[in-house]
């Protein structure tokens, strides 16, 4: 123990999740939810986390019956300080899954869609709204174009505009930071298969501090970007040192000097944001609906379903269909990508208008990688995978059940499920 972590670079948070030894009963409930077996300790003994194997996904945290795992990185006070500072514009980058879960912390039923109330509460706290769904739409444009380039290279031998080669198939989505870390730490041979598109959060940060300086009329060093995420692994993602592209861009264009700033300055989970609202005495449930003010809060239905398992695939299919065939997908609902089955697969045949040929694409959607991913990856490594495009999300159900969401007292949290029956509650 106490060996320096080997799988992190300088500046990265070495493991967002830790287990409070005094609360751990050694019941092993968490081990069932851990995608990498990073939880150490025998049954009955206090558990601890191997940070090198840990993905920081937080599934153990939301499923522990005793609330023993906790987050080591907490930015609520930093964000509050920036919100109080009148010279700084604080942009809140709101992920899709936050709007259907944060209501639970303020007495609304599970799954209440509270976008308008959330916007109001954010504005009251002093945030500018950057809806991450806008960045999700941007992700589809980039990742979808990348997939079409890879597919056309594989089928028609098409080369890029400058003769560059596109990556191999199947293409994996890269929105999920826990999944990216899973590939980096366990299957590095598959790195070329990951889409090179950044996750929506990091796109949002880079756009906010470049294009956003014009939208809000603020220099980038007076902009403070806060990712508001259903996810604990996003805290780790934001700390990756390569994500300061906005600073490099601004410096090259003589709009920045001095200390480098990251694209995303701080990340709050849904739970963190509830805590922040409660510190400011803002009752989200009592807010009126309001709209986002700038074009950076403008989003489509395809962007918002990113929070569900299958949502990225569905959004990508809608756009890929329009780009390849020239016609919109009808109906727009892509049913095979929906539902909670562990591995969902589908095939779509599209008529490529550019080459006047039919192309059949095999697609797969995987979530809950603790149970479902390994057989699929073995096929890809062996070169026998039938798929062209695979969406992967670490958490069961996708981001809506992310490790940063309000803890719902059931699942394997059996203690939470029976607690209301206790006489003393």
């Amino acid at each position, binding site marked *: 123990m106490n060996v320096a972590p080997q799988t992190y670079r300088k500046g990265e948070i070495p493991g967002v999740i830790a287990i409070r030894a005094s609360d751990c009963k050694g019941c092993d409930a968490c081990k069932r939810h851990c995608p990498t077996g990073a939880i150490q300790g025998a049954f009955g003994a206090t558990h601890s986390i191997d940070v090198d194997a840990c993905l920081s996904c937080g599934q153990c945290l939301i499923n522990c019956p005793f609330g023993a795992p906790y987050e080591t990185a907490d930015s609520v006070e930093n964000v509050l300080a920036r919100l109080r500072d009148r010279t700084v514009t604080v942009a809140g980058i709101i992920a899709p899954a936050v709007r259907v879960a944060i209501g639970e912390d303020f007495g609304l039923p599970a799954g209440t869609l509270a976008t308008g109330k959330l916007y109001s509460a954010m504005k009251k706290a002093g945030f500018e709204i950057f809806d991450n769904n806008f960045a999700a739409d941007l992700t589809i444009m980039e990742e979808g174009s990348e997939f079409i380039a890879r597919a056309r290279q594989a089928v028609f031998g098409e080369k890029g505009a400058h003769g560059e080669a596109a990556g191999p198939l199947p293409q994996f989505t890269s929105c999920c930071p826990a999944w990216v870390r899973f590939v980096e730490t366990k299957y590095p041979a598959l790195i070329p298969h990951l889409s090179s598109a950044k996750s929506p959060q990091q796109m949002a940060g880079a756009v906010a501090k470049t294009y956003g300086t014009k939208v809000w009329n603020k220099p980038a060093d007076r902009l403070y970007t806060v990712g508001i995420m259903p996810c604990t692994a996003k805290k780790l993602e934001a700390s990756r040192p390569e994500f300061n592209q906005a600073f490099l861009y601004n410096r090259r264009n003589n709009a920045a000097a001095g200390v480098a700033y990251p694209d995303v300055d701080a990340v709050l989970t849904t739970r963190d944001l509830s805590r922040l609202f409660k510190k400011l005495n803002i009752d989200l449930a009592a807010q009126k609906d309001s709209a986002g003010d700038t074009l950076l809060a403008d989003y489509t239905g395809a962007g918002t379903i990113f929070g569900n398992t299958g949502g990225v695939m569905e959004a990508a299919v809608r756009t890929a269909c329009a780009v390849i065939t020239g016609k919109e997908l009808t109906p727009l609902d892509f049913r095979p990508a929906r539902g909670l089955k562990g591995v969902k697969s589908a095939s779509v045949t599209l008529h490529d208008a550019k080459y006047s040929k039919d192309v059949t694409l095999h697609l797969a959607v995987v979530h809950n990688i603790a149970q479902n991913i390994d057989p699929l990856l073995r096929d890809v490594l062996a070169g026998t995978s039938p798929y062209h495009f695979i969406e992967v999300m670490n958490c069961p159900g996708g981001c809506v059940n992310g490790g940063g969401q309000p803890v719902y007292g*059931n699942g394997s949290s059996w203690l939470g499920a029976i607690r209301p029956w206790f006489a003393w509650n």
Partner: protein
Amino acid sequence: MEKQSLSYIENQPALSRREFITIGGIVVAFLALPVVWIRTIVASNNDYIRARTKGLYQDDARAAVRVSHANKSVARYYREFGGEPLGHLSHELLHTSYINRTKGLVS
């Protein structure tokens, strides 16, 4: 003194067929209770995931625009600033690369 004979005769089990079935039924019912209870908890396990999922699909269904390539603000971003998908600026700001973390990084 005559030796006392100690012979104990147990009562015949006075349990009729009916009684046996009744008692057996009660025991089985009590045994089944936790099974039903655990089944109910397991069945409601994913209810909150389904509820949140439904919330997002609702947001999609009621959206005026439901495809990313028709997002006017995204189009405006590309027109005013970003160029085109997979373009030069996109590669700079919106794409990244990954690292092999199995080799042991110097931290």
